[in-house]
């Protein structure tokens, strides 16, 4: 399919690239050191280690996909952090050293990941590595303090130290994930960090509070607390799973239904999909945040939906060749279709103003509209063709129009993005 061919070179999140490789190596070194040290020194309190390891493995088995190709293992993370923060199990002091916590966590994660591998799903090594590093950080900071008289006797001080460490570990994990994402998707680090923080706040709060609950409850009830806590953790996890599930179905549906314009012969095959991909890449290049990018993608996918109201398709379907009045009418009709849904107000606005020139009489259109205008024109001129001369000619034409029609910043970003997709172009 021509649709995917020239997009295939875009680095995918699942492929291992330099930043992720570094992270995995770091976690691997830590894992080997922790396991070697624990094996040499012998496992302290093996019953506790086994129980926590089992909880971590279960959590890894029940991994969760979050919006934007993210993965989390909230139950596993909460269990591992709880193990790192436990001061007593029942009435006995919990004596596991930090490296044992790391070793138990790592082994639990690997055991829990095996069924995923067996089922042919990606192992998610990068996600596991960043989770392990966060746990290691908390364990190394807290284990030496765990039996200080100060911490042991003053519950409030202990709670405060726990909370601070959990937040610090969470921040570190977000920074690592933000760095990797910025590297993989060629986004700006500040933007991807902000995206990461926004998305991880609710789940991070739940995991942090659950970790403290686990640490305290094992003290109050003994190991049976772990079994009891699985039920409420599962409730939280199920709620997240449903939320992530409907979000991805939503996107899939809009992607699929946007194709009705192609089936109806209004536009070329793959046009909506390509404009969607192009617009998102340009938006990312320009530093747009994830919620804005999602809105942009919806708008880009549906930007031609107004053509459905045309009696007969425009020849070739290319709106760039239609008269300005027709372009405006199509945009307006498309926007009113989207407005009928009553939920995508921002998207409707982007679609409505996509037909307006950058320096028009109505003021500057929103950034989303400007991006779609340029991306649509580019795809109308180039189509799915992988020919880089054609792409260069199209960009040249857009550049000549930057005085009035196209936003020069957008055209420049478009040039950069398409330059990556057609390597070797000058």
């Amino acid at each position, binding site marked *: 399919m021509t649709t995917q061919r020239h997009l295939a070179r875009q680095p995918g999140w699942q492929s291992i690239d330099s930043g992720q490789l570094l992270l995995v190596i770091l976690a691997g070194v830590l894992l080997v050191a922790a396991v070697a040290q624990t094996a040499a020194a012998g496992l302290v309190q093996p019953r506790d280690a086994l129980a926590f390891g089992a909880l971590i493995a279960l959590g890894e088995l029940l991994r969760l996909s979050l919006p934007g190709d993210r993965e989390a293992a909230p139950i596993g993370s909460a269990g591992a952090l709880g193990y790192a923060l436990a001061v007593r199990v*029942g*009435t006995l002091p919990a004596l596991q050293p930090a490296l044992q916590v790391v070793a138990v966590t790592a082994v639990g994660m690997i055991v829990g990941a095996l069924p995923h591998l067996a089922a042919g799903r990606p192992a998610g090594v990068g996600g596991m590595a960043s989770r392990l590093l966060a746990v290691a950080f908390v364990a190394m900071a807290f284990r030496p303090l765990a039996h200080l008289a100060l911490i042991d006797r003053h*519950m409030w001080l202990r709670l405060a130290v726990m909370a601070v460490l959990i937040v610090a570990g969470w921040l570190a994990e977000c920074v690592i994930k933000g760095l990797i994402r910025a590297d993989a998707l060629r986004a700006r680090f500040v933007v991807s960090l902000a995206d990461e923080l926004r998305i991880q706040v609710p*789940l991070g*709060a*739940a995991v*942090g*509070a659950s970790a*403290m*609950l686990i640490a*305290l*409850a094992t*003290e*109050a*009830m*003994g190991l*049976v*607390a772990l079994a*009891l*806590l699985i*039920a*409420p*953790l*599962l*409730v*939280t996890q*199920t*709620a*997240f799973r*449903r*939320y992530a599930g*409907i979000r*991805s*179905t*939503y996107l*899939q*549906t*809009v992607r*699929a*239904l946007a194709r*009705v314009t192609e*089936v*109806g*012969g209004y536009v070329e095959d793959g046009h909506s999909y390509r404009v969607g991909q192009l617009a998102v890449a340009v938006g990312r290049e320009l530093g747009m945040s994830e919620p804005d990018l999602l809105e942009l993608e919806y708008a880009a996918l549906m930007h031609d*939906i107004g053509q*459905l*109201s045309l*009696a*007969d398709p425009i020849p070739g379907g290319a709106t760039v060749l239609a008269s300005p009045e027709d372009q405006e*009418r199509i945009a*307006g*009709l498309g926007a*009113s*279709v*989207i407005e*009928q*849904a*009553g*939920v*995508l107000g921002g998207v409707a606005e982007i679609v409505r103003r996509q037909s307006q020139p950058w320096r028009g009489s109505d003021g500057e259109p929103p950034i989303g509209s400007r991006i779609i205008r340029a991306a649509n024109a580019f795809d109308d001129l180039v189509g799915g063709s992988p020919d880089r001369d054609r792409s260069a000619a199209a960009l040249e034409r857009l550049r000549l129009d930057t005085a009035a029609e196209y936003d020069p910043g957008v055209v420049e970003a478009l040039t950069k993005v398409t330059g990556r997709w057609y390597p070797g172009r000058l």
Partner: protein
Amino acid sequence: MSRLTRAAWLYMAVVVTAAVLLLAHVLVQAMAGGQDYLLSRALLVLAVLFMICDSSPTTLTSRQSAWSPSSAATLAAVVLLGPGGAALVGATSLISLRRGGLRERAFNGAMYALSAYASGEAYLALGGHIGVPRPGLFPGIILPFAAAAAVHVAVNHGLLWSMLLLLPPSGASLQRGRLDLHLSLLLVSDLGYATLGLLIAALWHLVGPFAAVLVLIPLFVARWAMGQFAAQEGAYSATMAALCQAVETKDFYTRGHSERVSRGATLLARQIGMGAERVEAIRYAGMLHDVGKLGVPTKVLQKTGPLTEEELAAIQLHPMRGLEIVRQIGFLTEALDGIMHHHERMDGKGYPMGLAGDEIPEFARVIAVADAFDSMTSTRSYRGARSVGEAVAELRKCSGMQFDPVLVDAFIAALAQGRWDSQAAGQPPPAALPGDFPAQVAAQDHDDPTAPLRVVESR
């Protein structure tokens, strides 16, 4: 709960009176027995916790009381304070900050007080210890606590569901549908929250009321996620409806067709007792069943004379094109089958595959009935809308040949029970939207069993 039947009123009065008597008994006993829990910090904290849980709105179901995490507070009260204290905590539902009339509050308060007291008695009966549990009590305390949780869930849901059954039929059936869909989740989360009750009680000697805060955080995150889920689900179905309508703009006379077929198919699916998830899937399948019609050239749809073989083939291809569009949506395969085969006939003369009888997927057979019914009861350019009676007669006539007789009977039964909103069907075409292009008018309807497509006789 705007209008109540007499039975519902009576039922409510019985429940509320029982709860009032119970609370009076609890208060008298507490004062006479010199129990000091009435002034304890635990009662105050748990009552506040209960109110916080009960006050925050959720949009998961139409009745939030059906999915309230507040059982964590009442069950903690069972362990820390005993049945009487738990009943008092549950009764605070009466003054929760949630919107709702006095009637609803009174019923909820009574329901929670009764279920909390019953679970407390179950806890005591199995030898549960009342007061702050020490580590030595675990794991022995778990069995009586599990019994208390089970009793709480059973009494709570029992009282609520009996009320729903007594409500006026339309509202109740709607709510029951929604409840069905989430029933497994409801039960799991109820038991999950019950466990949190035990945790609060167990952590009380370590951190006191702070246990409640720690428990509240994940709980509210879960509620947030559920709220997001519900909002996204609503947005999803609104977007889908709008896009389907956009597909229909080509032809005035079929506007609203997808929406009505979707409702008809849902009605029929419920009538034959399909599970909630399948009903949801068929709702979307009904909405999307004609999406492939967009691949049929406008001039073929508008043609007044008989069709050539090629034009007929173009029309008959539309289920396949529809499938092609929706295949990449993460749907149940059943919904895809329904879209692809909705023009098959029981006698095997349909398209695109010519399947017969039971070979036709159930979803497709359901959609076929709803599709033809809506086509007949709507106005067409070549005829006015037929009455429901005429359409039913036509369905009967074609039953067995074109339609599945079991489904036709079920559909007619559902119509007879007055479940079809005839207001929506058979209306004249809606006025044009401002700025709209001139309406296109199809001269033939491929869905209409009374006016089959005319084809040029081949030599």
